[in-house]
C-alpha cells in the first residue's frame, strides 16, 4: 500500500535580507491575487546551486519532487549540503508548507528532526519526557504506559528527577532519543540523529531503528550523510541534487550516484588525452550494471576500461593501474606485465584494455588511481600520472553474508576467506 505520495513538490525561498523590499513584493503579490492572477514571483527563481552566483532574488530549494513510499519501507534521502534534504523533511513534517504541489498521506507523520527540541531546562527529566512526548504527538496516557521503558532505554534512571539543565549534553540526547524512539507514528521522519551520543548509544540507536522499521513494520524516512547507516537501514534511497531528484531506487546504486555527483566535479578531464605517439581516448570504471562510476562499494565487481589509439610506430605496451592512499602510499597495482598481458599494437590501431575484478577488496576510504603506460619495445614511459582519478570506497557486504563489517574491525584490505570447523570426537580430547 502506498502510504505517502509526493506530487510536484516545489519550494521557493527568498534570498537576502527581509527588509523594505519585502513589503513591496508582498503588496505586488496581494495585488495579483486580488485580480485573480497567478503569483508573479513563482515564474522566476534560480535552481538551488549554492556555489554559483545567481541572478534572481528567489531560489528554488526544491523543484518538482515526485515520489511514493510503500508501507513498511525505509527510504533513505541523501544529497550534499544544500541539496534540499532538510527542506523536504520540513515539508513532510509540516513545519513549513510547499510553494506548489501536495503530499498525500495515509498515516500520521512524526519527525525526529533534531532531538531535544522542546526540553525545558528547569523541568526534571521525567517532566520533560511527558512534555517532549506530547510535543511529538503522544497523549499523556500513551507516555505513561511507556515511561519505564523510555527511562530504561535512555540509561538516565538516576537523574530522572533532576532538572534537565544539570544534565550533560550526551544525557540530554539520550533522553530525547529515547522519547522519540518510543513514539508510534505510522511514518517516522529522522534527520541525522545518529551523529550524536557515544559509540554504545549509537549502536543502541541503530538497533532500535532497525526494530522500528523491520520488527514493527513502520515506514521510515531517513536523512543522513552517513552512507553506512543508510546501507544498514534503508531499503530504497533517493538522491537529491540542487533541489531535484537525480536518482530513486536501490540503495547501493543511490550511494554510487551520490558519490559520483561529488567526484565528477573534481575529475574533469578532457578526452582524448594526447601523449607521445599515443592517445588515451577514454578511461572508464564500470559497475556490474555497466554504469560508469567513480566510487566503489566493498565486495562488488568492477571493470576498468582504457581505450587507446596508437600513433605511428608499433609498440608493446604495458599498462599499470595503481591505487594510492591519501598519504601517497602505493597500495596495489594491476599490472599487465605480471599477468603476461603485454600487448603488441600496430600503428594507428585502436585497442580497448579491460581489467576486471570480481570483488573490490580495498577497505573504505579515499584513494587515488594512477595510470602508467610503458612501451616495452623501446623501454620508454609513454604516460605516468599518479593523480589520474580520485575515488572513494564505501563499506559493503564483502563476504556476501548479509553483514557489513563494523568500523573498528575493518582493516585496510579484505581477503576472501572461508572458515571451516571440525568437531572432534569427545574421547580424542585429552
Amino acid at each position, binding site marked *: 500500500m502506498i502510504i505517502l505520495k509526493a506530487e510536484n513538490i516545489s519550494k521557493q525561498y527568498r534570498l537576502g535580507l527581509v527588509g523594505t523590499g519585502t513589503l513591496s513584493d508582498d503588496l505586488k503579490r496581494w495585488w495579483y491575487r486580488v485580480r485573480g492572477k497567478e503569483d508573479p514571483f513563482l515564474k522566476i527563481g534560480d535552481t538551488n546551486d549554492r556555489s554559483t552566483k545567481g541572478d534572481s532574488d528567489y531560489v528554488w530549494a526544491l523543484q518538482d519532487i515526485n515520489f511514493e513510499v*510503500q508501507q513498511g519501507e525505509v527510504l533513505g534521502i541523501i544529497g550534499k549540503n544544500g541539496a534540499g534534504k532538510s527542506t523536504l523533511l520540513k515539508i513532510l513534517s509540516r513545519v513549513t508548507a510547499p510553494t506548489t504541489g501536495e503530499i498525500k*498521506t*495515509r498515516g500520521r507523520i512524526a519527525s525526529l528532526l533534531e532531538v531535544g527540541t522542546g526540553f525545558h531546562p528547569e523541568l526534571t527529566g521525567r517532566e520533560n519526557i511527558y512534555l517532549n512526548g506530547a510535543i511529538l504527538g503522544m497523549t499523556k496516557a500513551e507516555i505513561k504506559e511507556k515511561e519505564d521503558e523510555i527511562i530504561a532505554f535512555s540509561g538516565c534512571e538516576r537523574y530522572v528527577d533532576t532538572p534537565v539543565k544539570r544534565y550533560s549534553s550526551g544525557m540530554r540526547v539520550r533522553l530525547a532519543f529515547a522519547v522519540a524512539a518510543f513514539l508510534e507514528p505510522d511514518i517516522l521522519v529522522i534527520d541525522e540523529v545518529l551523529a550524536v551520543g557515544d559509540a554504545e548509544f549509537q549502536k543502541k540507536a541503530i538497533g532500535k531503528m532497525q526494530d522500528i522499521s523491520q520488527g514493527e513494520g513502520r515506514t521510515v524516512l531517513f536523512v543522513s550523510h552517513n552512507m553506512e547507516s543508510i546501507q544498514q537501514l534503508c531499503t530504497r534511497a533517493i538522491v537529491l541534487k540542487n533541489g531535484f531528484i537525480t536518482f530513486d531506487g536501490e540503495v547501493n546504486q543511490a550511494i554510487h550516484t551520490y558519490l559520483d555527483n561529488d567526484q565528477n566535479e573534481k575529475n574533469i578531464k578532457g578526452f582524448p588525452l594526447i601523449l607521445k605517439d599515443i592517445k588515451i581516448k577514454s578511461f572508464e570504471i564500470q559497475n556490474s550494471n555497466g554504469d560508469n562510476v567513480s566510487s566503489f562499494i566493498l565486495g562488488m565487481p568492477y571493470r576498468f576500461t582504457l581505450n587507446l589509439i596508437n600513433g605511428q610506430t608499433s609498440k608493446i605496451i604495458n599498462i599499470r593501474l595503481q591505487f594510492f592512499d591519501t598519504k601517497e602510499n602505493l597500495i596495489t597495482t594491476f599490472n599487465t606485465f605480471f599477468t603476461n598481458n603485454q600487448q603488441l599494437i600496430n600503428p594507428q590501431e585502436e585497442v580497448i584494455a579491460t581489467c576486471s575484478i570480481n570483488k573490490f577488496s580495498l577497505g573504505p576510504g579515499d584513494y587515488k588511481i594512477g595510470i602508467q603506460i610503458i612501451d616495452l619495445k623501446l623501454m620508454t614511459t609513454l604516460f605516468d600520472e599518479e593523480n589520474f582519478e580520485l575515488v572513494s570506497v564505501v563499506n559493503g557486504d564483502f563476504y556476501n553474508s548479509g553483514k557489513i563489517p563494523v568500523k573498528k574491525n575493518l582493516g585496510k584490505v579484505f581477503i576472501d576467506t572461508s572458515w571451516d570447523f571440525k568437531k572432534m570426537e569427545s574421547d580424542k580430547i585429552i
Partner: protein
Amino acid sequence: MISCPTTMNKPSQTTQEQPWLYTISAKQNALSLNLKEIWRYRDLLMLFVKRDVVTVYKQTILGPFWYLIQPLFTALTFTLIFNNVANISTGTIPPFLFNLAGISIWNYFKTCLTGTSDTFKANEGIFSKVYFPRVILPLSLVFSNLVKFGIQLFIFVGFYVFYVVKGTAVSPNSTLVLFPVIVVLMGLLGLGLGMIISSLVTKYRDLKYLVTFGVQLLMYTSAVMYPLALMREKLPQYAWLVEYNPVAYIVEYSRYMLLSVGDFSWYGLGFTATVTFVILIVGLLIFNRTERSFIDTV
C-alpha cells in the same frame, strides 16, 4: 553489526485503496481551523500550561508569592500616586481595593496579549522542528495566565474580607454572575490581538516595538486607575478614546461587579463582546495563514 536484508517483507496488496488521511499542500482553506486536531493535542495544552505556571519561579525563594507581590505593590503605588497625590476619587470604595481589582484584570489582559504576540518568535526553536497545531501555544498562555489571575483574585478576596471585617461598605452585586464572562472576554481579546500581532511580527519586526509601548499607552485609556465616569467628566472631548476601547469596559464592569462602583450597561457589554469576537476571528484567520510558512520568514 547486522545489516537489514535488502528485500523487505512486501506489504499485502489490498485491492481497495484506503482514503488519504490528510494532505499537505500549498493552498489551504483559510477557514479550516482543525478543532479535532486541537482536541487530540489537549494533553500538550495542559502540559504547556503546567510548564508555564511551574517554571516561572523555579529556583526562587519566594516562589509563587511573586504572583502576589507584583499586583500588591503596583496597587499600593497607584493608590499613593493617583489617589493620594493626584486626588482621583473612588467614591466610598477604598482606593487600594479599587486599584487592586483594576490591576488584576488588566494584568490578565496584558499578559495574554504580550505573551501571544511573541508566540512565533519565542518558539521558533520548537516550531522549526516539530509540527503540532500552533494555536496550542497561545491557548496555553491564556490558560496559564488564567491560573495566575486566579491566584491574584484570591489575594483580592483576602483584602476584600479584611475591609468588610473592618466595617467598610463594600459589596458585590447581582451582576457578579457575569464575572466569568468578563474574564473569558478579556482572555479572548488578549488572545485575538496577540495572534494578529504575532503573525505580523514574523515578517515585520517593527510591531515588536509598537507592542511594548502600545500596551503602556493602552493602560491609560483603559480606565485602570480611574473610574470611567471621571474621564467623561474631566476630559469630555477625549472621552471617546476610552469609550471605544473594549478593554476599558471590561475593567470598569469587573469593578462594578466586584465592588459596585462605576456603571454598567448591556450596550457596553454587547459592544465589547462583538469587538472581541471579531478580533478573535480575524486573529485566528491570520494566525492560521501564517503558521503554515512563517518559519521561512521569521
